[in-house]
């Protein structure tokens, strides 16, 4: 029995070991991924992102409970930030997931970002494959507390939930580029807060700015002068899906059943419209692209001796060489080699 066959057989300890191997890029990682990969592609990958303190972990806890009630198995990857100073990390997402303890249909793994800036860890994509191959039907990926630019989750998940909480910013925050653009479903958590309806209004207004219907309404109201405004932002550019907004209170489960239903609807939409295949293909192209970058960089760094590199840096610092030209020079050396 190899580690991979144990993972495929549903052995939890084997999955845990495989995740360590994958996360650390240890010897044997490529072999195990090769064995697991043909068995992936079955799970529904759901990303949960949003600013720190909006309730992502608590919501993941509630979602997992709801999916378990339907009898479906749930894998959870919870990402927290690595300290840029010590390299250490406190991974505290499990604190909010204690309700899931003792259920063998749930497996939670915490990951530190280890310097990765997009809201996930570098190894998250491969960790997902291990969960998927191990047979988990739903995989919830919780990003680090994300601000405006951590959108990596859209490159890995089928469905992205962006969690907002009342009182975090005005309507201009809502139309800025970034995290709201990747939402398939918007959640306003802490719905017991009296400001929650205002947050919903601001988000709805933001979504309407991008819709065809509102553009037509604008023309009807102001005449054709304003027609030029189209096309405006259209966060989730796929047609046929209108981003819904769901109010939840993750501490008591309010709104969670509705959210689960929305996730189902989105999944069906993805499958029926062909968007799933398109999305997955784009994600794979992106993954390949970044692996190629890593591999090429590694090869370049291995082929250039460090003293040559230092001398190039010196020339750049002395303003004798433009950084772009230096990079081209080093790369052309690589292709000749």
């Amino acid at each position, binding site marked *: 029995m190899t580690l991979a066959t144990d993972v495929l057989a549903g052995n939890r*300890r084997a999955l845990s070991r495989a995740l360590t191997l994958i996360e650390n890029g240890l010897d044997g990682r490529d072999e195990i991924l090769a064995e697991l990969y043909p068995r992936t592609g079955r799970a529904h990958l759901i990303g949960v992102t949003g600013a720190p303190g909006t309730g992502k972990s608590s919501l993941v806890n509630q979602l997992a409970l709801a999916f378990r009630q339907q009898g479906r198995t749930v894998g959870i990857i919870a990402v927290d930030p690595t300290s840029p100073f*010590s390299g*250490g990390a406190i*991974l505290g997402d499990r604190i909010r997931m*204690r309700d899931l*303890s*003792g259920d063998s249909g749930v497996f939670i*793994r*915490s990951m530190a970002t280890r310097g990765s800036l997009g809201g996930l860890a570098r190894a998250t994509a491969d960790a997902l494959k291990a969960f998927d191959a191990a047979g988990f039907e739903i995989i919830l990926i919780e990003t680090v507390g994300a601000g405006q630019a951590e959108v990596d989750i859209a490159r890995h998940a089928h469905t992205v939930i962006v969690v907002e909480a009342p009182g975090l910013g005005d309507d201009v925050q809502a139309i800025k580029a970034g995290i709201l653009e990747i939402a398939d479903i918007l959640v306003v958590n802490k719905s017991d807060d009296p400001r929650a309806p205002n947050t919903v209004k601001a988000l709805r207004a933001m979504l309407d700015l991008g819709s065809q219907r509102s553009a037509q309404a604008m023309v009807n109201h102001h005449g054709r002068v304003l027609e030029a405004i189209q096309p405006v932002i259209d966060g989730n550019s796929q047609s046929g899906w209108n981003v819904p907004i769901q109010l939840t209170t993750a501490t008591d489960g309010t709104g969670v059943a509705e959210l689960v239903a929305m996730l189902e609807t989105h999944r069906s939409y993805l499958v029926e419209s062909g968007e799933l295949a398109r999305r997955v293909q784009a994600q794979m192209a992106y993954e390949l692209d970044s692996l190629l970058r890593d591999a090429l960089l590694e090869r370049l760094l291995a082929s250039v001796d460090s003293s040559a590199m230092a001398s190039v840096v010196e020339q750049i610092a002395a303003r004798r060489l433009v950084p772009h030209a230096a990079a081209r020079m080093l790369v052309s050396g690589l292709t000749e080699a």
Partner: protein
Amino acid sequence: MTERKIRALVAKPGLDGHDRGAKVIARALRDAGMEVIYTGLRQTPEMIAEAALQEDVDVIGLSILSGAHMALVPRIMELLKQNDMGDALVLVGGIVPDDDVPRLQAMGVGGIFGPGASTVDIVKLIREKVKLA
């Protein structure tokens, strides 16, 4: 790219609500470059053993101030073995009477730290005892 970090679980089994010590340790291990999974208060031995398995940790730090260590620790050690996690280094922090120290050690506890223990010593012990693959 190959980067192996020490992963630690800091847990508070039992019913006492004093988690300052556990948080101090979690913070100290983070500052020493470790990845610390912090599970919060009132964990059962089952919850701790399960979290240790899922997270594949190298070290488990148990903070017990209630005096219940002789009830909790044996159960946790047994569950860890059942989970094939017997290799993990287990440390106990809190109020442990001198007489209990050898008994805990006999169960396989790798270090026992009482009031006034230095976080530097704890980090040092972990680095000595944890052999990364």
